[in-house]
């Protein structure tokens, strides 16, 4: 199955999750997601998702000057973002559990 279809639904949650403990700029987020096993995530999708979460008021952002290249814009999760993360995480776990159950039952049958 094409994992990019699955990714679409959970990219918000994944981005919020990798920013939970440490702020990061776009490429950081991308690396963390890929490092976490989501190799297929598209570069531009991550940047788009960051902007959408920011516009939804779930992220903060600040620019850090860089000596080597363009200034980097860091994103961090704010309180609203943390609340959303908790809700989404709960929904995801319930969903994953349900899917797991269905798949297990079908396999056993």
């Amino acid at each position, binding site marked *: 199955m094409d994992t990019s279809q699955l990714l679409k639904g959970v990219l918000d949650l994944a981005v919020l999750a990798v920013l939970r403990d440490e702020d990061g700029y776009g490429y950081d987020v991308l690396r963390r997601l890929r490092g976490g096993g989501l190799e297929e995530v598209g570069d*531009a*999708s991550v*940047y*788009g998702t960051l902007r959408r979460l*920011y*516009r939804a008021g779930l992220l903060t952002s600040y620019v850090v000057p860089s000596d080597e290249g*363009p200034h980097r814009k860091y994103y961090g999760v704010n309180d609203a973002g943390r609340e959303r993360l908790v809700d989404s995480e709960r929904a995801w776990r319930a969903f994953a559990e349900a899917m797991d159950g269905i798949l297990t039952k079908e396999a056993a049958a």
Partner: protein
Amino acid sequence: MSAETKARPGLAEYLGRVRTALADLPADELAEVMEDVEPHVTEVFTETGDLDGVIGRLGTPEAYAAELRAAGGYPPPGPTGGSALWAARYTLLVTVVSIVVALGSGLVALSGGSGKFAVLGLCVVFAIPALMLLFTDRVRPSDVEALGSYRFANRGALALLDKLPPRAVAYLRSLRPAWWLVRVLLLVVTLMAGQAESALVVLTVVALVSWAGPRSRDDRRLLPVVVVANAFLAGVAIALLAFGISASTRESNGYPYSPSGLYYNGSYVNNVYAVDEEGNAIPQFYLYDEDGTPLKLYGEYCEDRGNERNFDNRFPLPRIEYRNRTCVVESGIPFVPLPPGATDRTPSVPTRPISPGASASTPPTTTASATSPATAPTTTAATPPLTSTPAPSVPTTVTPTP
């Protein structure tokens, strides 16, 4: 754009193309997006070493922008931003005006008169920038279709089509393949009409439709051209149809074309004069037919009269002459009438008319005496000319003393 983008060939162009593809976003948001994208693409460039590597990983700038747009929940690309919106509006406006003008020009294409294609030519001039916008993809057909005014007009047209009986619509649709035949027919008729200018225009338009019509199915940029060209041909077809119908009804009814005005023995009557039984001119009378309808003729008056009674049943109509650039009303009889009792023969026409007042109040001999002897009829003109003066151009002998 900073110094390091300049050192990397193609990087600035890649970023520029991403920015262009997202140009419809609000300026603030676009700036924020580019603050993310610039370090990202720069970093990928550093890792891969060249632009091909960047494209290999991130896709084309347009694909990158499209992915970012989809993930970012931005509206699909449309002509929402400044110049693109105006370009789309201009294209739509020119198309609509051209359709109307083309239809009108088609209607008059076979009629006489010069300059009937002037407005159409003007439309072509205005259409050139719009076509350039379209064919350089600065205005996409989807941009025009996204315009509120286009959607409004389209909805209206579809609603109108819904109101038509479905059988009529189906019939019109079934005629579509015959349209090429109609085009050929139009061309033949125009060539036979013998108007070089019209034939050339129709030939051009038919060629244009034949070339662009089939291609417009794949390339919608050609669609406005095809619609305008077809509107012109439709105008020509309607004009021909109307001409044909009016010609055939005229024949079947057997009514000859009857022009306005008074006729006597088949020739046009310009004025009417009346005399009493003694041959005296009746200075003023009014004509009616058997139903009491005034028999009006168009009369020319001098300017100070204005236009109040130009079309009148009061006779005789004044005759206008210009002497020394002044307008002079000649209201007398331009001939000497034979007394009604005399033999019917054509009266001779003198150069100088009779004043109506004199002829009404004086006996016929005086009337005749007022005319020049050279042209006076043989009946009553016994007396020599007395008071009649020649043309006013003759200088007066009276010189005022200072």
